[in-house]
């Protein structure tokens, strides 16, 4: 199975802060049965302590997530933001990152998070892929683009 699908993608998300982004994407995951009702709050709480904004080349991203106990089925929700939204910078408590694309990770098994992250890092360090996601209006196309860059996962 692919990691994302069109119904988990927002292509022109309007938000003024990271909380709104997390709530919007978390609601997509919750409404479609991927996460528990504790997920959004867990992501918000975690983001305050361990921020996930990454100052990647050209297009900055964030990978908000929560621990596996809040997740029912693994998936990734993607939000392409109309205007950059400041996320806290990973590893730097004073820094923020103007984020254009948010990948909200719902991962049910912590060992699959590691291989997922390794593949995501490859995407993040390749601005061409991020430009494609940013500039593609069709959610179906983004889902295909994104999924083909990640290995399928098997859920036990």
């Amino acid at each position, binding site marked *: 199975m692919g990691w994302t699908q069109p119904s988990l993608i927002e292509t022109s998300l309007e938000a003024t802060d990271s909380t709104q982004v997390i709530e919007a994407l978390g609601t997509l995951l919750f409404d479609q049965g991927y996460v528990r009702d504790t997920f959004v709050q867990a992501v918000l709480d975690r983001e305050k302590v*361990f921020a996930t904004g*990454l100052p990647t*080349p050209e297009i900055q991203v964030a990978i908000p997530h929560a*621990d596996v106990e809040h997740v029912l089925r693994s998936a990734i929700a993607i939000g392409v933001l109309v205007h950059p939204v400041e996320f806290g910078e990973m*590893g*730097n408590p004073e820094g923020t990152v103007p984020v254009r694309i948010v990948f909200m990770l719902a991962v049910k098994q*912590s060992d699959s998070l590691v291989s997922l*992250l*390794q593949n995501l890092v490859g995407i*993040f360090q390749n601005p061409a892929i991020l430009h494609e996601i940013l500039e593609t209006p069709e959610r179906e196309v983004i889902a295909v683009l994104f999924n083909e860059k990640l290995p399928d996962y098997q859920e036990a």
Partner: protein
Amino acid sequence: MVKKRVLVACGTSIATATVAASAVADMAKSAGIDVEVAQCKAAEIHGKIQTFSPHVIIAMTPVPSDLGVPVFNGVPFLSGIGLDQLKSDLVEALKKD
């Protein structure tokens, strides 16, 4: 040269530390440096320093600055920004006796 111990610390999920740890191991191998890499959560860092005695710490999340061990911000292993600089700083630190 004595084997160098590298401790990678991350938030709660250990995933970012695992990604960085494998990148550090690859980097050390190509630089001809013998390393042992361990991981911990940021909250466990004091205890892990006692038991593992790392030569350097790579932090994926803020850690206290008074650990008595050189600390490097490991986020470039994820973002790619500043990665060359980080690698050369790390190699330099690991080549010290």
